[in-house]
């Protein structure tokens, strides 16, 4: 990375939406926030493409829109060529729109159906007075259409007459009209068929080579991003968990989430034998994200607690049991009925693949006590015992993005302070 000021830099960006509360909640002063973006810092150099990857609802689109100030940031700053654009007045922001642009996911809904193609592209030219007379305007529109690979004679047609790929090209032409230096591409190829997808990706790359535009390329598909991005940032629940060049990102050591995400992508190669990591459960709600590392509820490599000698799988199973107890998502009656007289203890262990006994005798004692509470349907007692005894740094401390062997990752696995599972990082060796 160069030392010079990057083209775009975000610092501690946060975007919270008020979740759908009704006025009773507001009356009582109860508000809850969807933490769509929860402290994201990133920088994009001139001429660079930064890929931003994550599953739906992880806040990647919000990052894009906040970077462009189409949404106000709840906290944090965005610097464009060194100026903080969160502080700009609305007329200054309008001027900025000539330098930064946006390409959308859905080509159908991103073009006004009642305007012709030349109206749509012309609007961009008119707003910023890029051309003054009509002839030059028409010529410019034709040039733009030509540049994105469309027949310039189609300028007075309406969007509904074009296919998805062609519409996406029109969207790109509209963004290009103001000659921007930075474009946020928000899932620009997700709605397209593979063959068309490749056309658009190549077009974006050509434009970058020609005009030196920087991209923030948002996508959910790692294989697409890998092809276009110089660096990739992986997001999970509003935070960036790992950043690096594609090579850095795809070679271990990695953040466990990146690892799982990568392994989940099906490879178009029937003889490829995946060593698949299946993540349990679903992404937690961004209204109330888990404490500590927000991935710990699904992470296959959670650091075991300090005082116990656990096998990794054993520990993960135990954690799953605990999470289910916390959510009260266990129909104990049914489990008891199905247990074939082997007892609740054994049935529960069966269900969660917890060995009998655990490899650590001390832990075994605690577990059997908790399970015996469950037998009496006492969820609270069981929860209290388990939560008190088994504490991992992953559920307590929020990891920060730090340099690892390849790139940067936010994971306690690569923080020597937590190697032993201790939760008191103050006590440094």
């Amino acid at each position: 990375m160069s030392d010079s000021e990057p083209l775009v830099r975000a610092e501690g960006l946060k975007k919270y939406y008020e979740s759908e509360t009704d006025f009773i909640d507001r009356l009582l002063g109860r508000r809850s926030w969807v933490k769509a973006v929860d402290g994201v810092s990133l920088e994009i150099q001139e001429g660079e493409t930064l890929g931003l990857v994550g599953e739906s609802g992880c806040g990647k689109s919000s990052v894009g829109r906040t970077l462009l100030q189409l949404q106000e940031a709840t906290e944090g700053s965005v610097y464009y060529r060194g100026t903080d654009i969160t502080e700009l007045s609305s007329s200054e922001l309008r001027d900025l729109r000539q330098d930064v642009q946006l390409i959308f996911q859905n080509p159908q809904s991103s073009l006004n159906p009642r305007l012709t193609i030349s109206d749509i592209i012309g609007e961009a030219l008119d707003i910023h007075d890029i051309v003054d007379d009509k002839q030059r305007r028409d010529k410019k529109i034709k040039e733009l259409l030509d540049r994105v690979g469309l027949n310039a004679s189609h300028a007075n047609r309406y969007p509904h007459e074009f296919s998805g790929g062609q519409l996406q090209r029109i969207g790109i032409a509209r963004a290009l009209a103001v000659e921007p230096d930075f474009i946020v591409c928000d899932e620009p190829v997700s709605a397209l068929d593979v063959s068309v997808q490749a056309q658009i990706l190549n077009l974006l790359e050509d434009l970058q080579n020609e005009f030196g535009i920087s991209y923030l390329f948002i996508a959910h598909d790692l294989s697409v991003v890998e092809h276009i991005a110089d660096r990739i940032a992986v997001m999970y629940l509003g935070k960036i968990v790992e950043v690096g060049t594609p090579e850095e990102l795809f070679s271990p050591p990695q953040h466990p989430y990146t690892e799982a995400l990568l392994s989940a992508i099906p490879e178009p190669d029937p003889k490829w034998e995946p060593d698949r990591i299946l993540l349990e459960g679903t992404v937690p709600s961004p209204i109330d994200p888990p404490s500590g590392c927000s991935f710990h509820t699904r992470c296959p490599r959670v650091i075991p607690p300090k005082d116990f000698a656990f096998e990794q799988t054993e520990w993960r199973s135990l954690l799953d049991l605990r999470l289910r107890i916390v959510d009260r998502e266990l129909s104990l009656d049914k489990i008891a009925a199905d247990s074939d007289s082997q007892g609740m203890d054994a049935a529960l262990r069966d269900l969660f693949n917890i060995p009998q006994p655990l490899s650590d005798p001390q832990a075994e004692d605690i577990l059997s006590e908790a399970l015996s509470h469950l037998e009496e349907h006492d969820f609270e007692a069981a929860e209290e015992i388990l939560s008190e005894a088994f504490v991992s740094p992953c559920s307590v401390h929020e990891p920060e993005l730090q340099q690892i062997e390849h790139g940067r990752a936010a994971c306690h696995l690569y923080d020597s302070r937590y190697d032993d599972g201790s939760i008191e990082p103050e006590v440094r060796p």
Partner: protein
Amino acid sequence: MALLEVEDLNVRFYTEDGVVKATNDLSYQIEAGERFGVVGESGAGKSVTSLALMRLIEEPGVVESGEIRFKGQNLLDLEYEEMRQIRGNEIAMIFQDAETALNPAYTVGEQISEAIRVHLGLNEEAAKERAIEKLESVGIPDAPQRYTDYPHQFSGGMQQRAVIAMALSCDPDLIIADEPTTALDVTIEAQILSLLEDICTETDTAIQLITHDLGVVAEFCERVMVMYAGHPVEMATVEDLYYNPQHPYTVGLMSSIPRIGDNRDRLQTIPGRMPDLIENPPGCNFHPRCPYAEEVCTRMEPPLVDVETGVELEEVASDQQTAACLEHTGDLQKGLDYTVTVREETSMEADGGVTDE
């Protein structure tokens, strides 16, 4: 006799703008327990094929001609009541969008057990028990509790699992899965695919998986059919198709997908777009987009032939590779010119097809 035999299926939609030829002389077979993939871009006629199998094509669509033989019986000849007995019972369907496929006004459990009651004649109690069993088998935690939940209380992945449980409820012999994972995130997609795979192996159920994702096919299916503009253009085992594609469209598709770690700077593309199925190009439908097309391609419609012998087959054995390109009937002069290389292994030559040189 294969489990499912589709023969010369033609589906037409009579719309205001003209007649949409959604499938054209479509023929294929699925063996019992086989995992069969149907691949193509949007508008290729994949979903219509699956709806036709269930006889669920609605106005203004019509199955114009052809046969769909399931266990030797032509489904198109059946009385409505007989067909209804097969739906959900012997052939089940999984739809793309689980959220809309579930009725928001009924509990998930009820929607599963109603099919059980109808087809297996079980009483309320027994049907419920079976439904819970099925919910458990698709990995829904705490199934007895979730039985009484409404669809909106399920997450997207869980809804798709529930839809799968619904399809499994009467132990069908064939499941038609129409883009079952397209709406899901990759991590959830991986869960669902591995679940489907387990089910298939355990119960020996055949699956027809419809998708546009070549990765999913490679991972899940044993045999594939590639569709273009309502035509089957290539049919082969996944190994053959991925390592030795024989139709230019397949080649184009394969070379345009972004693959992780393939070190390419630029993706290859297929120029142009799929025709709208109302007015298709003459001859080979793919010729306007095909780099290997010659004048002959605009005149002759290529039949689906065995790529080795160039003969049109009455019945295709499951390990045979067929493609609908004039190259394989010997009508193409210059031949196909592409190479398939597999890194760190010997490079396979597929220059100009296998048969000619």
